[in-house]
């Protein structure tokens, strides 16, 4: 068995460490890129949402590199994500790709027994003891938390750095070094090192950079290729950005949700505008817009794939949030046709707008 998985932000670091520790063979798909999208678009139903297409591209590249088992997380609605696996299986079957799917649904939907069954399929390929397996999992979780934190720090510090480009360079180097590590422990050491280093980036405390929150559909805001690397661009502009949703957030949120104590701050913030979970992360999107205002951010950018059902609901609500709280919010919709030039123009125009607003406020006071 040679395992692979679709990309989602920094997940591949944790996955690499986990499978290294378990001694299971795996293939990390090449980072999502144009080729993955082209392959995915070719084989996917036209009207399916963008994440589906890029994921198909990831699988096919991995299969070319010898993968025969695909792990994905599932969900049972109300959004399309839960139906991804069935369609994807059919597509690969039609392409004569002989692969197994292991779908990690949430226990409440398929029963705890089935979960053990599916986890068993993976872990029976590892010769490690149960204790070692648990240790491996703990390390993987630690890694995803660390890398997400480093990344979040870099995005934020980018607004304050004295030498422009420092944080971006450090982040890129960190990722390069981490992925070349030979074991989970080595990766943890590397990440600790960079966690320390990032605090030594020279910053200008007097600067008051623009601050923008990135909100919207979870895949498109986490997987950088799908949003045309918006966070990198903001770093280049010297804007501080923040994104709450991340793989580590997802893990925590999923673990706590049966107890209903997940993301209490977001739930509270969204209450006035959207008090229920309607699928996807629409409630989070609305709640984060409110939180961005409370934390003194200048604006928020919502990103979602064309046709994304839950985010269309939040898009209808955001103008009210924006008006009530006096915070500009821009929606960017991405699909395989999104042109980079127009996209950048919109981001730049938004940044201009935020800058002008700042000035006019200064002026009035």
């Amino acid at each position, binding site marked *: 068995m040679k395992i692979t998985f679709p990309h989602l932000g920094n997940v591949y670091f944790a996955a690499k460490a986990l499978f290294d520790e378990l001694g299971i063979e795996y293939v990390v798909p090449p980072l999502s890129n144009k080729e993955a999208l082209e392959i995915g678009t070719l084989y996917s*139903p036209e*009207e*399916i*949402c963008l994440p589906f297409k890029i994921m198909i591209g990831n699988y096919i590249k991995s299969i070319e590199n010898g993968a025969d088992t695909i792990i994905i997380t*599932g969900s*049972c*609605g*109300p*959004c*399309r994500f*839960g*139906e991804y*696996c*069935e*369609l994807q*299986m*059919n597509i690969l079957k039609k392409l004569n790709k002989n692969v197994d799917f292991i*779908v990690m649904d949430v226990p409440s939907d398929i029963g705890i027994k089935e979960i053990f069954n599916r986890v068993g399929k993976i872990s029976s390929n590892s010769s490690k003891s149960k204790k070692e397996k648990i240790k491996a999992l703990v390390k993987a979780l630690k890694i995803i938390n660390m890398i997400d934190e480093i990344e979040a720090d870099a995005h934020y510090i980018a607004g304050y750095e004295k030498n422009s480009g420092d944080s971006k360079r450090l982040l890129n180097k960190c990722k390069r070094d981490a992925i070349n590590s030979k074991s989970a422990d080595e990766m943890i050491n590397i990440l600790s090192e960079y966690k320390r280093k990032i605090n030594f980036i020279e910053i200008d405390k007097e600067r008051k950079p623009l601050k923008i929150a990135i909100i919207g559909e979870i895949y498109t805001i986490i997987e950088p290729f799908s949003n045309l690397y918006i966070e990198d661009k903001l770093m280049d502009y010297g804007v501080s950005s923040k994104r709450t949703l991340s793989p580590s957030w997802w893990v925590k949120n999923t673990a706590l949700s049966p107890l209903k104590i997940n993301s209490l701050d977001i739930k509270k913030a969204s209450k006035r*505008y*959207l008090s*229920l979970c*309607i*699928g*996807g992360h*629409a409630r989070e999107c609305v709640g984060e817009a409110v939180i961005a205002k409370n934390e003194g951010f200048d604006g928020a950018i919502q990103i979602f794939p*064309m*046709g*994304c*059902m*839950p985010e*269309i*609901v*939040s*898009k*209808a*609500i955001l*103008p*009210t949030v924006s008006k009530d709280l006096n915070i500009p919010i821009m929606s960017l*919709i991405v699909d395989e046709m999104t042109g980079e030039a127009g996209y950048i123009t919109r981001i730049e125009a938004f940044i201009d707008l935020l800058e002008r607003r700042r000035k006019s406020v200064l002026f009035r006071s």
Partner: protein
Amino acid sequence: MMKIGIPRGLLYYNYQTFIDSFFYELGCEIIYSENTNKTILDNGVKYCVDEACLPIKVFHGHVYSLREKSDMIFIPRIMRLYKNEFICPKFCGLPEMVKNSIPNLPPVIQDTLYADSKTVLKKWAFSIGEKITNDRRKIENAFSISLKKHKDSKKGIRDKNYKINVALSGHPYNIYDNFLNMNVIKKLNRLNVGVITEEKLNEEYINRQVLNLYKKPFWTFARNTYGFTTYLAENSLVDGIIYISSFACGIDSVVIELIKDRIGNFPFLILKIDEHTGEAGFDTRIEAFVDMIERRKGIEDNISASW
């Protein structure tokens, strides 16, 4: 008398008997929006978020038209019709979408409904009834009368005595809103084609069809449409399937693929609608499909005749 505005859009088509009777028994004056027309569509397009699907836009248009005529508008948040299933994220967020998109709305009746058991349904009916009257007996009465009427009401279409028959599938509001679907049923009948809709197929058969899937569809629409179309196709109970689907419908994008996978080359026509769909092209596609079925049938008849 309290004037309740009822938008004739989305699931109104499924539950109109219940809704009409319930508010009538409560002693409200009911103000309906007109059947969907150009003005309603245009206002819907104007006020709704661009990215939404046609039925949601049209619903906005219906609400808009009721804005100045009613004391309250009925926009229930329908979360679920069956146990462990969902409808569509847009239904769950419907009241929010509408309220944030159309200015100056009167109060909205938006009570959340999980219609998977009678007790819950009753509770929901009471929470609405109490906004209108203090007389609990009256609400109780209105509820049981309306539920009975709903159960007795005739649902679905099954044409008889046509040479060619097709399964007409899609979400109820696409099938029953004759403006949205450009009178597709009449058009078919005129071409001598009869239609049958999913309400006419026993649920047991529908549920049996979905057992073959790796994962049971969690959308009620998906389960129904998939079960209905594939059953009729596999048992040759119709000559073809016509699926009316709105552009940008996330659910249809999945269901259509699942159906295609199952039925092979059984005649299957997908008619996509949005506010730009032109009637001429729409008609041509229907005619071409019917021609194709006729040819197929002709060949089959010839084969069986030569046996």
